[in-house]
């Protein structure tokens, strides 16, 4: 009797052992199957030249440039799209093991962060020479591809351009209370605040932020939502990049009641920032990476970004001699602040200020 019970108990134990085993094996084999499926996919064909790009710019905007490069050179381009800042953080986490050759960022600040971490390598002279020194790193490790201007968007039913103040300080006047929209979490806005700190000093920047906050600005998640909000009259004016207006005009029609204003005084509010690229220290085919950067600065690609195509991009080409879109105020007619974009890399200082003034949580 007792031996029978023992036998049953051990059978039970044995069986339970198998049960656990099977569960484990099932889970493991499904995982392995997935791995096998993808490693089969990931195995490269006999090593053709290829390039891996982390793009903080969306596929809708820059996808065609990659295709053109692939067609022109036969080099396969693998692109990982993501947000500029999340990709920068990813590159920092990846370190020397990063699979990326090139990082294409929405703004100079994110490139500055990688440059500061020593992750970008020096670019050859011939590349740097293509672009005005205003639009590249003085450490020679990244270069601007296209430019964008900071502007004030204003509702044309409520305001005329003449009603808008010459400089950004005018908006601290109490008459703008509740009429301004801004996007403090947006990279372009933060670059503008960094420029303000660089140009006018920490104390003045703080004073300006406090002044605007006293006017109870409405906070938006992005430039585009400010443009739409101004068009709808939620706010009268807002701090944005120049090109969102043209996209809104396209989606909402010419009657969309908002226009751009380039602050006349040429202060930080009229900053020209760039989207740019850098080559990573982890890159194993640097020559291909440089070739890609040269391609982006070629006349074909530059005029492509300037809007010479069906879905106009309305960006500013940075290589001299490439025509600007007729709807845009040309770069040389905008009074811009005199600033080294590399100085915009002190994002942390800006964030600290934005947190201290309570603009950011």
């Amino acid at each position, binding site marked *: 009797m007792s031996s029978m019970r023992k036998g049953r108990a051990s*059978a*039970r*134990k044995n*069986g*339970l052992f*198998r*049960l*656990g*085993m*099977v*569960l*484990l094996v099932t*889970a493991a084999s*499904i*995982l*392995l199957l*997935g*791995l096998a*499926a993808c*490693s089969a*996919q*990931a195995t490269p064909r006999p090593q053709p030249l290829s390039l891996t790009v982390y793009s903080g710019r*969306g*596929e*809708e905007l820059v996808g065609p440039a990659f295709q053109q490069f692939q067609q022109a050179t036969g080099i396969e381009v*693998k*692109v*990982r*799209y993501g*947000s500029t*800042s*999340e990709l920068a*953080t*990813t590159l*920092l*986490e*990846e*370190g020397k*093991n990063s*699979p990326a050759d090139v990082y294409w960022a929405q703004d100079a600040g*994110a490139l500055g962060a990688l440059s500061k971490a020593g992750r970008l390598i020096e670019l050859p002279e011939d590349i740097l020479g293509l672009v005005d020194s205003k639009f590249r790193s003085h450490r020679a490790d990244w270069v601007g591809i296209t430019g964008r201007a900071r502007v004030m968007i204003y509702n044309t039913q409520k305001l005329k351009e003449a009603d808008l103040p010459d400089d950004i300080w005018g908006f601290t006047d109490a008459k703008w209370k509740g009429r301004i929209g801004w996007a403090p*979490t947006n*990279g372009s806005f933060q670059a503008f605040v960094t420029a303000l700190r660089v140009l006018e000093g920490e104390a003045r920047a703080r004073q300006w932020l406090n002044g605007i906050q006293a006017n109870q600005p409405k*906070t938006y*998640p*992005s430039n585009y*939502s400010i443009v739409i*909000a101004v068009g*709808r*009259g*939620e706010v009268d004016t807002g701090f944005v990049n120049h090109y969102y207006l043209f*996209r809104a005009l*396209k*989606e909402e029609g010419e009657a969309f009641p908002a226009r751009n204003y380039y602050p006349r005084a040429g202060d930080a509010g009229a900053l020209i920032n760039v989207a740019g690229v850098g080559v990573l220290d982890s890159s194993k085919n640097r020559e291909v990476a440089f070739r890609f950067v040269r391609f982006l600065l070629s006349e074909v690609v530059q005029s492509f970004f300037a809007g010479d195509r069906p879905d106009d991009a309305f960006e500013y080409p940075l290589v001299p001699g490439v025509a600007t879109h007729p709807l845009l105020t040309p770069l040389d007619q905008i009074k811009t602040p005199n600033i080294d974009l590399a100085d915009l890399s002190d*994002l*942390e200082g*800006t*964030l600290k200020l934005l947190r201290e003034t309570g603009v*950011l*949580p």
Partner: protein
Amino acid sequence: MAIARSKVGFLKGKLWGRGASAPRPPALLWLAAGAVAATMLLPLAYMVVRTLGAGSEIWDLILRPRTAAILGRTILLVVAVTAACIALALPLAWLTVRSDIPGRRLWAILTALPLVIPSFVGGYVVVAALGPRGLLQQLLAPLGVERLPEIYGFPGAFLTITLLTYPYVMFTVRGALWRLDPALEETARSLGIGARGTFFRVTLPHLRPAIAAGGLLAALYTLHDFGAVSLLRYETFTWAIYIQYETAARSLAAGLSLLLAALALLILLVEVGTRGRGRYYRGGGSPRPPSIVPLGRWRWPALAFCGLVVALALALPLSVLGYWLARGIAAGEPFRLMWGAAVNSLYVSGLAAMVTVAAALPVTFLAVRFLGRVSALLERSTYLGFALPGIVVALALVFFAVNYARPLYQTLGLLIFAYVVLFLPAAGGSIRSALLQINPSLEEAARSLGRRPLRVLTGVTLPLVRSGLLAGGALVFLTTMKELPATLLLSPTGFKTLATSIWGSVSEAFFARAATPALLLVLASSLGMAIFIFQERRQER
């Protein structure tokens, strides 16, 4: 409850109870469950490593009064959304399982679909439809409506997240209603308790684990949501964490994430507190499908209720998307169907659903059948990934894979692994409530008749919890369809899904182009849902 208890009370302490005769769980079950739970250490370890790398500024950040305000706002949103989700999901689940409402299965599919709408799309839709000078106001303008109540802030975030998350509760409760022994209600009625009393004293108490499991998912989802709160400008913890990442301040982000994890722990403790000591399985007799309750004259209010929920949570987003699409086509946008991305979405979501269910099974089985402190801890720990913002989990896996498992980095395998870490509780919750409703004596009877435990599992337990496995798989499937941060960072380079396509267009403010993949996402998911409902129906026969 009293009836339920007395009916099954004689089983207490026998066989699978905590008595001396209780079998100890086999080492391998422990091992499997332990391995699954250990994956949750990855995000935790990453957060600790990064937080330690932060300077004193982390304390400045955490100790600001503003942090307390964010904490308060987050808790308010979590509590409100969870309560509203339960209030919506309970009647919907009952109507689509137990009533003779016309088009029962269609309603079941339609009311589940809002789950696949990515929250950043939901946020844009709510702003476009209900925001100042939005579509609704334009519609009402001829009637002289100048402005609508403010949508930004709490109301908008609450509305958006509730409409996107109530299906979590609906799924778990539907499963529980399927498995409920009709004999319980019949006994109550035969003892002279009215229909209403039966519902509140018998049915509802038996649904408690399912409501708790679903409510927990809704609460933790609210905790990690970023899209809706950022678009509707309601500052929660997750928003604050994303803002740190916006500026590559990964140490500060990790520090805040640890705080968020602590908050999640608090929520988990609250949920444990709601668990009673009751038994939820049937006493005996062969299982029968739930009885159908004729609605009679309540049919019209019931239809109106289902219609209203579907109109707000599904028809509204679809019509805004359709409006964007039509406007885009009118403006000359090319109409592109992204079948490749759709296939990728279905493929990874299907795979993620299967692997996650397989991974959730040992943990949940251990926690339900071998109740103890350690097994409970293992199960609870799997909720961490679901409570954290996706970007934190994704970066943790970037960090570990790139340094310690380089060949796996940016492969489908790692992506699926990430989905498992993120969505394990979505499967576990359903499986848990299903296991609780199975009388262990059935398993024990099979075993005493000589069946090997494995055969017991495959022949008795799994068929009985099939609806739980299905519901869990479906939840993971639908949630994976819209997953973004991990997909962007961890998928093989160049791998596109519908969610990343939508994001790609929306982030560059091309709304018209986002509409096609978004509509395709809903379509593909409804196919998945139809299969699920069909399976549920097979079980009914």
